[in-house]
């Protein structure tokens, strides 16, 4: 009698732990999705600003072409190639900003200011997203999660190797 009671208790505890882990994982997956959506939106916005800069007088024809190409590449890249494309865009933007600042008009200065504000936001968004991804990956490596397939059909989140200092 006593042992069966004990076993029942253990079973209940086990079930509780499973649902607890499933909820936890579900929450993490949700967070990865929202933080990625946020980051993606910000990056799209950055590409749009980059195109605007490319069409402004800030860029000479050669760097304008470079920037346009980089911006389109960043827009079209799939999630796995995204970080590389975005780093490329950062590089192209860096080139123009470093020698374009001196002779910028008022409207162009506003554009550059918008870009720097956006860059600060992207930095925060990246850190939030990479954090969500790494905790999700950590939880998904757990034995309970693997044996009971708590992750279901959700794909393993892609680590976005976007170095913040590239920006």
């Amino acid at each position, binding site marked *: 009698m006593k042992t069966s009671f004990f076993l029942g208790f253990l079973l209940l505890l086990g079930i509780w732990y499973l649902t607890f882990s499933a909820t*936890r994982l579900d929450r993490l997956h949700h967070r990865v999705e929202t933080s990625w959506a946020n980051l993606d939106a910000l990056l799209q916005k950055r590409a749009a600003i980059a195109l605007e800069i490319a069409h402004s007088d800030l860029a000479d024809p050669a760097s304008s072409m470079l920037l346009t190409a980089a911006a389109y590449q960043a827009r079209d890249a799939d999630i796995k190639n995204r970080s590389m494309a975005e780093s490329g865009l950062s590089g192209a933007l860096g080139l123009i900003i470093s020698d374009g600042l001196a002779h910028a008009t008022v409207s162009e200065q506003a554009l550059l200011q918008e870009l720097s504000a956006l860059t*600060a936001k992207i930095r925060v968004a990246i850190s939030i997203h990479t954090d969500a991804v790494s905790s999700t990956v950590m939880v998904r490596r757990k034995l309970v999660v693997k044996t009971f397939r708590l992750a279901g059909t959700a794909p393993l989140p892609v680590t976005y190797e976007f170095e913040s200092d590239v920006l």
Partner: protein
Amino acid sequence: MLTTKLRIGIVCPYGWDTPGGVQNHVRDLAEFLIASGHSVSVLAPAIDETKLPDYVVSAGKPISIPYNGAVARVLFGPIAYARVRQWIGSANFDLLHLHEPAIPSISLLACWAAEGPMVGTFHAAAKRQKVIFAIGPILEPAIEKLSARIAVSEAARLTLTDHLETDAIVVPNGIYAKRYSDGTAQGKWSGNTIGFIGRFEEPRKGLQVLVDALPIIARFAPDVKVFVAGPGDPKDFEKEIDPQLRDRFEFLGKISEQEKADFMSSVSIYVAPNTGGESFGIILAEALAGGACVVASDIPAFDSLLGGGTYGALFESENSTDLAKVIIDLLRDEEKRKELAIAGKRRAQLFDWEVVAQQIFSIYEMAMVGSKGVALGSDQRSWNRFLSRDEEKR
């Protein structure tokens, strides 16, 4: 500047009516956010519930536990948990901002109870602690619910990565730089004077280091005077001081904010000889904002705040001979003092609430993306879904 109006809930883990850096930070942040038009409610433990400002909700009486070399007044337990749940459930917040959620406190309870956008700020900088190491696996599921983590300094960030293996964004503590910038120099505190502010009875504030350094300083600068401000009983300290030098020390007791500003612009040198346990060094930022020439121990928090010696002089922590040397050099070199004070004052603008609150607010915005606000959560949510899949549809 901060456009959308939000309903923000802030949880302060330490007793509201006991002095402390976290409490001050929460108070200033809450008042700044309210002044910018947001509605803010702060949940905090309190000893005397009748004396709270109207934006603070009491969570009950705090209990004292030893933590990080000091006594922390915190609160936890089933009754506190019920109060936390009630506070979250009744207010319909857009976002929760939890302070110091990694210690057993109402912040952790709130993190446990709530579901939705949450931001956590980590203040403490401590060496690796076995206790936290042991309860890490319990904390992990709670801490990972935070959408974004803020550390108040590089030291606090390292503590976090060490203990809980998660990263954080560094946003410094805020000060009202303007309050300190318009102090007027007072004759009684001017001359060859050294200032110190803090609870000098606590050994980690390091007043003893300054006391030990004074005999050497007095040999080179015979008219030097030390002004010590801050709450505490100076009797025990005066016994320790060399009788010949006792009249060099003057204990001012607790001083007001306005007096603090005057104090900072009067004294020749402001000294922060803290031996450790400091995460950011708010008093140092205030001293810089007040235009003081600052000398501080080279503990990590101060080193990074002073930019490795660019905005104030550093000395080797707990080494009173080195402190004496640095102070003597500065007392003799007025040009250098002015130079440091001007650089420091500019540095302090980075910690002004106008700047800091904007940074915190943009993290709030990130945390709130795609959310419908804070609700009471259940760790058994997957059951609801399993039994009746209507939770999401509603």
